[in-house]
């Protein structure tokens, strides 16, 4: 770890001001990705702006049509929220499948989305549920937010404050974990809304993405059987020592059907 300045921000406005300063300041939420990167010297920020002291970024508020989850709400808080679990079980299931207890008690929703790791769980759930990412400056639909591997629509000086999840009629998240890291080798979120079905995949490709043909099949018939025979092309899949592209493509189908089964309870 190299030397850097440390600020504990008192408010979103304070954090944003510090974030706009010269150099390469970075936000610290749970630090579950950032701190290992600093230790390995893969990241060299001029300053860390700690969001832990900002109460307005924390907590879950459940409305009639949507759930709002604060950016620094931990995975353990999300998965442990009984009302939220009743309203969107897929979100709770995803949260409790992340990492291990230590990670779930430090890592945050906003941190995970802003990092947009191509194998992280939350991006699939946010995209699959059609969430809206709320920042200190604007609202960004999930479809616009995830731009590519570790890339988002966030601009400099912008920070995630809250995420709005519309309540689906039903939804499920099924994940095949990488045996080493337990990130997703293939994770699929399936959700059904009045407006139609959404299917989002993480872990398998370069970034979280939707599967339109899976969605169309589910619009016809929201059942695992409707997805039989559908497949994704191995050409678009990651290929590494943990899983071949063919295996990942196959797993996407298996996880999608599993997610539908979970959605149907």
């Amino acid at each position, binding site marked *: 770890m190299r030397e850097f300045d440390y600020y504990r921000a008192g408010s979103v406005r304070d954090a944003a001001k510090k974030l706009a300063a010269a150099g390469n300041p970075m936000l610290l939420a749970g630090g579950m990705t950032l701190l290992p990167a600093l230790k390995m010297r893969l990241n060299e920020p001029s300053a860390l702006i700690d969001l832990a002291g900002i109460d307005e970024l924390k907590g879950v508020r459940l409305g009639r049509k949507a759930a709002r989850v604060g950016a620094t709400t931990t995975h353990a808080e999300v998965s442990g929220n009984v009302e939220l679990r009743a309203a969107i079980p897929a979100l709770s299931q995803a949260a409790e499948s992340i990492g291990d207890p230590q990670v779930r008690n430090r890592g945050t929703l906003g941190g995970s989305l802003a990092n947009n790791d191509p194998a992280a769980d939350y991006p699939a759930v946010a995209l699959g549920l059609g969430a809206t990412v709320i920042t200190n400056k604007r609202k960004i639909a999930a479809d616009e937010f995830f731009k590519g591997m570790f890339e988002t629509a966030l601009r400099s000086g912008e920070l995630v404050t809250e995420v709005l999840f519309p309540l689906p009629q039903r939804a499920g998240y099924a994940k*095949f974990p990488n045996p080493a890291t337990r990130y997703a080798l293939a994770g699929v979120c399936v959700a059904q809304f009045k407006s139609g079905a959404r299917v989002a995949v993480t872990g398998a490709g370069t970034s979280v993405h939707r599967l339109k043909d899976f969605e169309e099949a589910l619009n016809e018939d929201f059942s695992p059987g409707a997805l039989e025979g559908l497949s994704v092309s191995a050409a678009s899949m990651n290929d590494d020592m943990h899983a071949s592209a063919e*295996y990942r493509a196959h797993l996407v189908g298996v996880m999608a059907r599993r997610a539908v089964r979970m959605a149907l309870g």
Partner: protein
Amino acid sequence: MSGNRGIGAAAPRSEDRRFITGRGRYVDDINLRSQRYAWFVRSPHPHAEVRGVDAEQALRMPGVAAVLTGADLQADGIGPLPVAWGITSMDGSPAVEPEFPALATDRVRYVGNPVAVVIADTRAAARDAAEKVNVHYQELDSVSNAAAAMEEGAPQLHDAAEGNLCFNWEWLPSAMAPEARANTDRAFREAAHVVSLELVNNRLVPNAMEPRASLADFNPGTGQLTLYATSQNPHVNRLLLCTATLKMPEHKVRVVAPDVGGGFGSKIYHYAEELVVCWASRRLGVPVKWTAERSESFLGDAQGRDHLTRVELALDADARFTGLRVDTIANLGGWLSAFGPAIPTVFYAPLLAGVYKTPNIYVTVKGVFTNTTPTDAYRGAGRPEACYAIERIVDEAAAQLRMDPAEIRRRNFIPPDEFPYQSPVGQLYDSGDFEGCLNLAMELNGYAGFDQRRRQSEARGKLRGRGMSFYIEACGAAPSQAAGQLGARAGLYEVATVRVHPTGAVQVMTGAHSHGQSHETTFAQIVADRLGVDFGNVEVVHGDTGEVPFGMGTYGSRSLAVGGSALVKAIDKVIEKGRKIAAHLLEAAADDIEFSEGQFRVAGTGREVAFGDVALAAYVPHNYPLQELEPGLEETSFFDPENFTFPSGCYICEVEVDPGTGVVELCDFVAADDFGNLINPMVVEGQVHGGLAQGIGQALMEHCRYTPEGQLLTGSYMDYCMPRADDLPSFKVATRSTPTPFNPLGVKGCGEAGAIGAPPAVINALLDALRPLGVTHIDMPATPNAVWQAIQAAQAVE
């Protein structure tokens, strides 16, 4: 007197209080005044010439005390890292042992090879400066796979090792080898059945919980050097420092291995880093500390396994084994680690008879240099590789002959009445009841109910398989003369001192080192049992050359069999002297004095004196036979065993495979082991659990992988898959003991068993599950990806 803390009791571990309350004292917990920190500059290239090291910029960085290189090392006359075991090729030539400098002088041969060291006020300053050390590398072609390294035109690592061959070795020794080879060949010509397999024994990273660390403290005023190091054998490290590398007189060097968090073999060796901090401390006159980061452990700790093996088994018409041929290519890495050449040869081939009466066995092993981290002993060290080859080929024979895997083994076991049994590959097996162990394991598994469980799994869409393995291993290293004949450059006895204090409290100084093995508990149980003193009145001291006589340390499941035996012999001497003192106190003849439960008594009378009173008399000799006996009560024994010990055991594993994802779930795992007598069954069970976890890790998860050129792909836990508690089933563990006659405790050793027996049991079970789909072979680790690919490949053929 010893209550529930004697031999055979599941006494709670005395170590645990300090470990679970954070009061352990590890090397990195020790900090000395004026201490500096070392950071190593390591090669990013698998193979390169080092044209020069420019430290100018680094030396100008804040807090930097020195930057030292291989040239400085040479100038100071520091010797190369020693090889502790010599191997002779089948043509009579010695193995190629290139000089391995602690800091590269002319060439680097693996990624992570230390090139220079920066010494600075803080670890961060040292690391910052290390980035400014400019090493001029001329990259060379490189190769990581041992078979590829043997091909014509492959990059050459060492001039003296043509074709990268370190040795081409055969077993038995040269005088007997031609006959063994001819007999084995004849067995194959005359066989009713021959089965063969090509096997990969995957390379593993040891992954001790505590990374290696060294703190060297040279006192320029006294010329005394103290090294605190994460070592399994501090005396051996001192010996090598004094004689081979740093070259100081032994009375000026003290090596302390305090609490050490796991070793698994990886902390046996005299590593570059500990030598360099000693040398730097001597040069600078201040203490110097180095603590590995986990990434450095992946690059710098000696790695395990990495064999390519062809194994063939000849059988007669009754499925009796008549011949075994094994040809192995062992990957040794870029240089030889201390025991690197011994592990795939003398720790491997002599175990290839397994538990069977195969009369003819011939083994060849080629040791090959590659651009990878050096390999050496890792939990099991040669025996897991032997067990895997035998137990895979035996199961393959059973499958091809459509026999029950238990039946084919039963038919070939060495029967209990043939011990001691001389194996055709040079081991004299001490004792065993293989059929008894097999029956015990089958009973625990519920062998007869398998078909029903298989149908239940099928109903859930899962493929169920069951596999077994039967291992035997050589522990208790080692009879020194036998080890010497096999090329060891050290004697492998062990030492213990029993110091009885005036009040009867007992200190044991043992040359064994506990880094997870619970010696402080089990050795104290032996003392409590034999001397009848309270368990709480016994302290076990280890890991400090300043306090303990010259011992050999802990590895190869030797501590109890060799160190425990030395302890028993020292205790016997204490009792013998005590008997003479008691005879004087009781005014009787020494021959009439009996000792039991802490009391010396005159046989056949009620007259007795307690052990503590005898101890007091020894130190306050007012009423004492001073003409015949010296005061004091402290005895030392060195124990050099007659033979190795041979633990054995039967493991049965059941798996369920999800054919849709390739996921292998362990449903049942049974271990029936013969460890001889047990001192503490709870500690033994813990050792078995740990070994099984590592064995299962090898079978299903762990794999140290390099690019073909030698860049490490699995350099962190993001890519190297360690087993976690929830990957493992609840183990069913039992023992069936046949005590060894070769040591006074009748104990054999249990530390490595699980890691040896588990991999073939798991893979045999997996193949049993997959054979209906046409899958007949899979290599370790059988990850979900690998299993799914194997199923796809088999179905494509069908």
